[in-house]
């Protein structure tokens, strides 16, 4: 990918990230932290790509670590966020239960 194009994508992603997060209320800051933590678990895809290309033992071991750690990031981040968000309820919903 051409460097300038990458820079454009980075710049736009940064603007998007800042604008999206600025509207998150303080009440959701912990889930936001763990939710964004989950999102960068997408790194597992990168891990899979390098493990898929790995030939030598070292490459395979390191690639395996990359997938393992990435998957842990994604799954753990998701479950923790889910659990927290599950607890947020409004009075109306509370009454229904």
């Amino acid at each position, binding site marked *: 990918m051409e460097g300038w194009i990458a820079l454009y994508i980075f710049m736009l992603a940064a603007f998007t990230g800042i604008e999206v*997060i600025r509207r998150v209320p303080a009440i959701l800051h912990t889930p936001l932290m763990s*939710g964004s933590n989950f999102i960068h678990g997408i790194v597992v895809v990168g891990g899979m*790509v*390098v493990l*898929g290309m790995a030939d030598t033992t070292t*490459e395979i071991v390191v690639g395996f670590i990359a*997938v393992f750690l990435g998957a842990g990031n994604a799954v753990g981040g998701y479950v923790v966020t*889910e659990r927290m968000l599950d607890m947020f309820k409004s009075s109306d919903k509370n009454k229904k239960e």
Partner: protein
Amino acid sequence: MMPGVDFIVPAAYFTAAVLFIYGLKGMSSPVTARSGMIWAGVAMLLAVLVTFIHPKVEGNYGLMIIALVSASAVAWWWARIVAMTDMPQMIALYNGMGGGSAAAIAGVELLKVHSGQASMVPTTLLVAAFGAIIGSIAFSGSLIAFAKLQGWMRKTWRFPGQQLLNLVVFAATLVLGAWIFIDGPTPTLLLAFFALALLAGILVTVPIGGADMPVVISLYNALTGIAVGFKGYVLEIPALMIAGIVVGAAGTLLTQLMAKAMNRPLTNVLFSGFGKADEDAAGVAASGEIKSIDGTDAAIQMAYADKVIIVPGYGMAVAQAQHKIWELTELLTSRGVKVSFAIHPVAGRMPGHMNVLLAEAGVPYDMIFDLEDINAQFPTTDVALVIGANDVVNPAARKDTSSPIYGMPILDVDKAKNCIVIKRGQGTGFSGIENLLFFEDNTRMLYGDAQKVAQALISGVKALG
């Protein structure tokens, strides 16, 4: 014409990127947050599945599945059983894993360059090396943060010249990075490079006090995001670039918001000792005497009040008192008392910490108010009940220009008609300074562990029939 792999794979990644942003957007309200996260989860699943047919992936499918399944199982199980109060360290752990994954990806890529199977233009090599450094620091730093918060590592190492050592290690990492850039990545060089970067992460984190950790975790979260973004560039997967940088930018903003709400610049958190405050905290001398109250009287005061505002703080988290507090609230509400909760942005040890705990206890979020929304209401409030909060209700922030927390916005509980403060004894809060609130005429101290005191209040209110 069947869409081929060159269409399916990028299309799936593109969809995932859109859903990630959409998921984060959902966080702007508790109503949409959950469905947003579920969509992001679907996106993740889609991206992982489609990667099995990624054109660059040529083998090791078995290992891939083993790694995916085993890591998922362990992470799932641990994330399910962990207590809500342990959330900060879990976030640190999972974040560290992400950073480590980014670093490992860089490792394989650089090894491929060495073996000649892959070539990189200078820019790509540079980005790969930077991603490696950032990912490694986020990895080892987050693990130290995890160990500290989990109580596996209680000591806070501090010694003279520490900053200098850190600087030297970091500079050495950069030098090795430059060397790799110029001479190419040989295995020995790479080993030293990664070892130094990991060491840098450890050294920076070790001296930081446990209570400052949430800021550091948020910072490492941003760093991992950036590292992932850089890996996306190297691997030419724009979805990674976008997800990574969105998180990087968001995390940076969140870190700044936290540091600002704590009234400490970020550099202070990272590079200067914690607890220095108590030495030079003299300022406005506390005048007046501390008056205490017992549970029964406090219960009567609240039971016959029109309007009560509850201000929880770190002590409530320590005592796990949120369930009792909600029981008390329901009792009061059934007697016709109007009860609200007031949350300071940095109450507790994580942004939004109190909200999560109260939500866990079942407190509906429309009873919970932010500082700006509720501060005007204290003057018309009969009882402000402070539960294990200290710094966030310290009027020194308004009155004492020499106080380290001067200028920090606080909850104005001292303006309520009566203020009852639950704490165990003379312990100070996170900032280690004296609290002027305790000396006010309308303040009464209710000593004891928050959970036990809450139980006493419940019994007291019940006794009134």
